[in-house]
């Protein structure tokens, strides 16, 4: 099969077909690259939510007229910090935090090391995404909860987060795709994964078949994440679909 493929590619005028096909058919290597594409951004997304979710909540409830107003100077500093971190281009941020990666993970190269800059870039982004979702919340419902004697904490955990769940899931899908993209970029300075494959082997060695294969795999990954995210969001949204009978049967 490999020989036929090489012959076909050569007949199309593809140069270095043999080494490219050999590389692509090395499945353990390819799987490892896919795994690296996923795990660093996934870990970073998770960590980014650990930081960004509370931050996003604070950005909404802490403002003047919010559920739990906080001192104006604090809010201004938070907003400023989020904007600042978001405005540093990712590749520059990555270079800047290399020492921090060494400190935390012990090395500044390799896929695992990219988790640090990815998290740092993603956390402020996630906080804004969370903020946008929570701002969609109907103020009337929050007032009703306040009128029922809810504490700010209860409003966050029992009203805002559950009511905004579909939108939060959409936001998380959006965030993980963006972070996946950052992760692919990190291939430029030491990270692994499909992004690095496309960049170093594909673009660098002029292995065009490998480059396109890696890009197509990345596109497929994004499609899969988007489809799962959208499906989860729609499924969790009680304002649409979900007939009563379906629910009864599940019980």
């Amino acid at each position, binding site marked *: 099969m490999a020989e036929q493929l090489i012959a076909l590619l050569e007949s199309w005028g593809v140069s270095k077909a043999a080494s490219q096909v050999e590389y692509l058919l090395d499945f353990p290597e390819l799987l490892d690259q896919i795994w690296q594409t996923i795990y660093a951004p996934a870990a970073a997304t998770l960590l980014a939510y650990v930081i960004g979710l509370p931050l996003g909540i604070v950005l909404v409830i802490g403002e003047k007229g919010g559920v739990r107003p906080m001192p104006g100077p604090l809010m201004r500093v938070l907003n400023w910090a989020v904007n600042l971190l978001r405005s540093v281009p990712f590749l520059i941020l990555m270079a800047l935090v290399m020492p921090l990666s060494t400190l935390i993970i012990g090395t500044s190269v390799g896929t695992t090391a990219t988790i640090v800059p990815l998290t740092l870039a993603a956390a402020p982004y996630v906080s804004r995404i969370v903020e946008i979702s929570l701002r969609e919340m109907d103020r009337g*419902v929050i*007032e009703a909860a306040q*009128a029922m*004697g809810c504490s700010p904490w209860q409003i966050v955990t029992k009203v805002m987060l559950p009511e905004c769940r579909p939108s939060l899931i959409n936001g998380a899908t959006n965030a993980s795709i963006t972070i996946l993209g950052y992760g692919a970029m990190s291939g430029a300075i030491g990270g692994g994964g499909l992004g690095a494959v496309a960049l170093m082997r594909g673009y660098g060695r002029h292995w065009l078949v490998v480059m396109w294969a890696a890009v197509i795999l990345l596109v497929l990954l994004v499609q899969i994440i988007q489809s799962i995210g959208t499906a989860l969001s729609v499924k969790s949204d*009680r*304002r649409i679909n979900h007939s009563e009978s379906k*629910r009864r049967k599940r019980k």
Partner: protein
Amino acid sequence: MGEPIIQLRHLTKRFGSGDGQVRALEDISIDIRAGEIFGVIGLSGAGKSTLVRCINLLERPTSGEVVVDGRDMLRLSSKELREARKSIGMIFQGFNLLMQRTALDNVCFPLELAGTPRREAAGRARELLELVDLAGRADAYPAQLSGGQKQRVAIARTLAASPRVLLCDEATSALDPKTTRDILRLIQDINRRMGITVVVITHEMKVIEEICSRVAILDRGRLAETGAVEEVFASPKSEAGRRLVYPDGVPAEVLSTAADQARVVRVAFNGGTSYQPLIASLAIDCGVKANILGADTRNIDGRAFGTMLLGLPEDGAEKALAYIRSQKDITVEEAADCHG
């Protein structure tokens, strides 16, 4: 009935400051008695919502006193305020249900806050859904319910906290007439059976007539008048009251009760100038503030035809009459059976 359960004292609420300041409420004092259904009516922007939101402090008054069930609300710590709010139910024009919870779980919500065990809460919630006639829709989500059904869920939800007071801010304004009547019946039923004091905010006279025992009329942030519904409706004493009760003008038989007007005169326009200049010049030339009690006038080609009823204060009435008589194409006579 009798004891006041809600006391508002010199309640004032202003929004903003400086030039853009809105005086939403000015020196409002009202006593609402335990067990009654008290109505608050007024035109849009009169301050009704602000008033009712000052009762459970969703809005903090600029000054004044709010006492609910013996508690001075403005003195409470935020924790005490949350406790106090649990005994003050509130329903809204927009229902404000949790859209991601079933009807049953919506009703469970206040019980959850109170830490009631899940099973017990669900049992109680089912009883309440039955009370509001929604037993069959416990597992429906709000998006699957009609407006009237949503409001029923909202009512069951506030009842779950066993409130002493129920505040209704335009609770029926988004509903059709038939559903409005059903919801009002339900509220009345709750008032009678559970002895819950109800405050109804509305801009519709119908709603007040239907269920309220006493009513307060708000006019641009001020309390125009307050009293038993029959009395206020039979003889509104304030300008705002008359406008609400007789939106199309005052019928002659009511005039005898327009107590704050010393003299009532009927002015007939026979094609002279239109009537606005007359009222204006009465104020400017004679210093008399005439009150339009009713009018049936038509403007044809800039000339006024028809009659108008004016209320005139005692001092200045003669002067005003002389002035009106001196006008061209206008005749005036004292309205019958009006003794001030």
